[in-house]
């Protein structure tokens, strides 16, 4: 009769002393066969059980702490799982020592086989004061979890049922894997490309896993890969990758991988377990006690963010002044060298004012990204996401969504792409829609310019308030979208808590340099191009019909001075005044002026004039161009070559007030991100409908909030 039964092979693996053999005995009873694993003298126990139409063969693998091939037992267990490919792997986890035991689980889940966790000795864990929410743990790890007490044969039937259920379903969910970070992923990508060139040799292996093992310098895997057609190239690339990672982190990649795995486990355990007694306290735990404290965590996060923006301003002020002065000198020099005329205006007002206006904020950008890199590399950003997790859960998302949102503080483009870490399509879409409200680095120069002009003493606090406003709008948006467009609850995720580490100088430098160089490159390419176009639009047509004959007025003023009616200073003032009015009228009649006037009625209720209107339009290409456009407006529109800095020009402009400025900043924060970001949004969502919704929603939100700020402020008598 046994031949009519369906065959199923199940491997039992787990740490030594996890109760593996007890479970094996409970499953197979006396029906066991003892032999050796091929070629070695390590005992191999096999047992059989007929259950629900299946003949299940259980193989008891040697107890191991990991699959790193550091010992013979580990190697045997690993080779058996990879080469014999059992239908299901049961991972016996000692619940009373869950963190250490889950280390093996993280490695097993990378092999791409169906796994069931037998959460053994759950009675002991309860006795030690450890409460494990096994259902939540299962949802986090995306692995079925069955609580068992091997020596009392508790949970054995449930375990068998789960085995059959998994076998019957014919498919299994990919377990949640440890994320090793950008640098590791880049090295893995490179190795995967070469490994994929000869699929036959590595047929049994997942290329991602092989690449990771090569970065770990796993000798057994290297032996196997030596048969690959491109072995030499692979080893060279692996060595290069290891060297890059070592140079970056000052640590062996294998140790870093271990750290990441424990970070993953620590996150899963923090979410799914609770302790009724104080069990373990290392340095990370002590720091975490404070940083992810239910009540203190959020104020600490907010405080650190405020400090970051405050330092961005205060430390950036001096170098910013130096660059500003340098650009001023360059402008004057160019104005003297190039003969007066249209080319002079193009170079001075268009190129130097336009691009220079953006370049002066480079020190602030460097400081901001250095601070972000510092928070990321020390492991704090993961804690920030953890702290936000509670809030995100309450509004219908999980902390994992906060990670792309945090990336969004740098740039929306990688943030949208980073949303791919979220498996659930609805969660991903919501995350992408709200990531837009995270203020990207490109908006910072606009904030610095405007805040520096209107609130020089509290600029950092005002910028911080904008970032908070962005987060609040994002939270409100999640709530709106959850209730209106995407109903249902979010799926569970592991929030990783990597151990704290002292960041290396090289890594900090590299991360900061990447972003800063992108900023410089952008200033020299797109911003330069747009500055020239904006200059053209603000300078042409050259023929302007003025509201008065200013030349006549100027000559009359000259005659008055000759007759003694005006002194030299008064004449200079009058002349300057007329020239300024002429320049302003000329600008208003330019192509850009006409375009701006066209949209002015729409933006007037927000307190914006046409100049801000064209700055906002140019911002669609890249947010920094709002600054360069303003710089060109004041360059072209101001007749005085030696005029003050752009910030002062804006501050003394009677057309603007602090209330209008804040409404403008809120608009900049909330309205559509740049073209590149929108293109990526479309590519990632694959839906024009979502893109159009995004464009409409962000524009409506920007308009609505700015309107409330301006009109509300006016009602309160603020401006």
């Amino acid at each position, binding site marked *: 009769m046994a031949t009519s039964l369906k065959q199923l092979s199940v491997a039992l693996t787990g740490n030594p002393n996890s109760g593996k053999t007890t479970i094996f005995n409970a499953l197979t009873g006396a029906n066991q066969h003892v032999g050796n694993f091929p070629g070695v003298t390590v005992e191999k126990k096999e047992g059989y059980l007929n259950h629900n139409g299946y003949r299940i063969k259980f193989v008891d693998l040697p107890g191991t702490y990991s699959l790193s091939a550091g010992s013979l037992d580990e190697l045997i267990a690993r080779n058996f799982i990879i080469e014999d490919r059992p239908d299901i792997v049961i991972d016996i986890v000692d619940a009373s020592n869950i963190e250490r035991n889950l280390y093996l689980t993280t490695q097993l889940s990378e092999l791409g086989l169906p796994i069931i966790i037998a959460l053994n000795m759950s009675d002991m864990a309860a006795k030690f004061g450890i409460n494990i929410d096994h259902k939540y743990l299962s949802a986090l790890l995306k692995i079925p979890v069955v609580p068992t007490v091997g020596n009392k044969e508790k949970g054995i039937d449930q375990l068998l049922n789960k085995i059959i259920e998994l076998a019957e379903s014919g498919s299994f969910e990919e377990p949640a894997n440890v994320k090793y970070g950008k640098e590791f992923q880049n090295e893995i*990508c*490179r190795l995967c*490309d070469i490994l994929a060139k000869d699929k036959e040799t590595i047929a049994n292996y997942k290329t991602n896993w092989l690449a990771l093992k090569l970065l770990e310098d796993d000798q057994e895997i290297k032996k196997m890969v030596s048969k690959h057609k491109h072995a030499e190239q692979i080893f060279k690339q692996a060595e290069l990758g290891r060297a890059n990672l070592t140079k970056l982190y000052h640590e062996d990649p294998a140790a870093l991988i271990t750290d990441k795995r424990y970070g993953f486990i620590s996150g899963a355990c923090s979410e799914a377990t609770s302790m009724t007694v104080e069990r373990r306290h290392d340095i990370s735990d002590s720091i975490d006690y404070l940083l992810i404290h239910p009540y203190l965590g959020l104020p600490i996060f907010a405080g650190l963010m405020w400090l970051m923006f405050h330092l961005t301003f205060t430390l950036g002020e001096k170098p910013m002044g130096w660059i500003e002065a340098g650009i001023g000198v360059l402008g004057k020099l160019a104005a003297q060298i190039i003969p007066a005329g*249209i080319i002079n205006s193009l170079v001075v007002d268009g190129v130097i004012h336009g691009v220079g206006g953006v370049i002066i904020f480079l020190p602030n950008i460097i400081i901001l990204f250095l601070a972000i890199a510092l928070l990321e590399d020390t492991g704090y950003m993961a804690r920030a996401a953890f702290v936000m997790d509670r809030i995100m859960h309450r509004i219908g998302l999980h902390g994992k969504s906060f990670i792309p949102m945090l990336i969004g503080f740098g740039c929306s483009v990688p943030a949208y792409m980073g949303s*791919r870490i979220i498996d659930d399509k609805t969660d991903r879409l919501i995350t992408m829609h709200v990531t837009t409200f995270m203020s990207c680095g490109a908006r910072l120069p606009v904030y610095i310019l405007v805040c520096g002009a209107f609130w020089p003493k509290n600029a950092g606090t005002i910028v911080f308030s904008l970032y908070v406003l962005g987060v609040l709008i994002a939270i409100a948006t999640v709530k709106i979208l959850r209730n209106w467009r995407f109903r249902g609850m979010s799926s569970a995720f592991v929030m990783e808590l990597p151990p704290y580490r002292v960041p290396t100088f090289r890594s900090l430098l590299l991360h900061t340099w*990447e972003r800063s160089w992108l900023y410089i490159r952008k200033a020299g390419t797109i911003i330069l191009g*747009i500055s*020239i176009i904006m200059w053209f639009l603000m300078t042409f047509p050259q023929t302007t019909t003025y509201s008065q004959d200013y030349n006549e007025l100027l000559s009359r003023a000259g005659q008055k001075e000759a007759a003694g009616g005006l002194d030299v200073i008064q004449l200079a003032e009058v002349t300057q005044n007329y020239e300024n009015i002429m320049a302003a009228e000329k600008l208003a009649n330019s192509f850009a002026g006409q375009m701006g006037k066209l949209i002015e009625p729409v933006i007037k209720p927000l307190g914006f004039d046409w100049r801000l209107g064209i700055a906002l339009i140019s911002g669609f290409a890249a947010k920094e161009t709002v600054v360069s456009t303003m710089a060109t407006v004041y360059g072209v529109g101001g007749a005085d070559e030696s005029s003050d800095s752009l910030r002062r020009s804006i501050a003394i402009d009677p057309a603007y007030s602090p209330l209008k400025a804040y409404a403008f900043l809120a608009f900049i924060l909330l309205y559509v991100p740049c073209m590149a970001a929108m293109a990526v949004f479309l590519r990632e969502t694959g839906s024009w409908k979502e893109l159009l919704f995004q464009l409409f929603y962000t524009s409506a939100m920007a308009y609505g909030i700015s309107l409330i700020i301006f009109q509300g402020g006016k009602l309160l008598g603020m401006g």
Partner: protein
Amino acid sequence: MLQYIIVFAIVGIAAIYTVVKLFKQAKNGNCSGCPQDRGTDCACREELLRKNK
């Protein structure tokens, strides 16, 4: 007159360059490296490999 010809040429080149650059950027996603956790299907991979060569 010559000044105007030079200026129009510069503006024309800038306009074409900017449009091409913006489209290229939109297509490539302004890639400056793989964002964290992207996996091997990373859209930036080609760019990274090209840079690495």
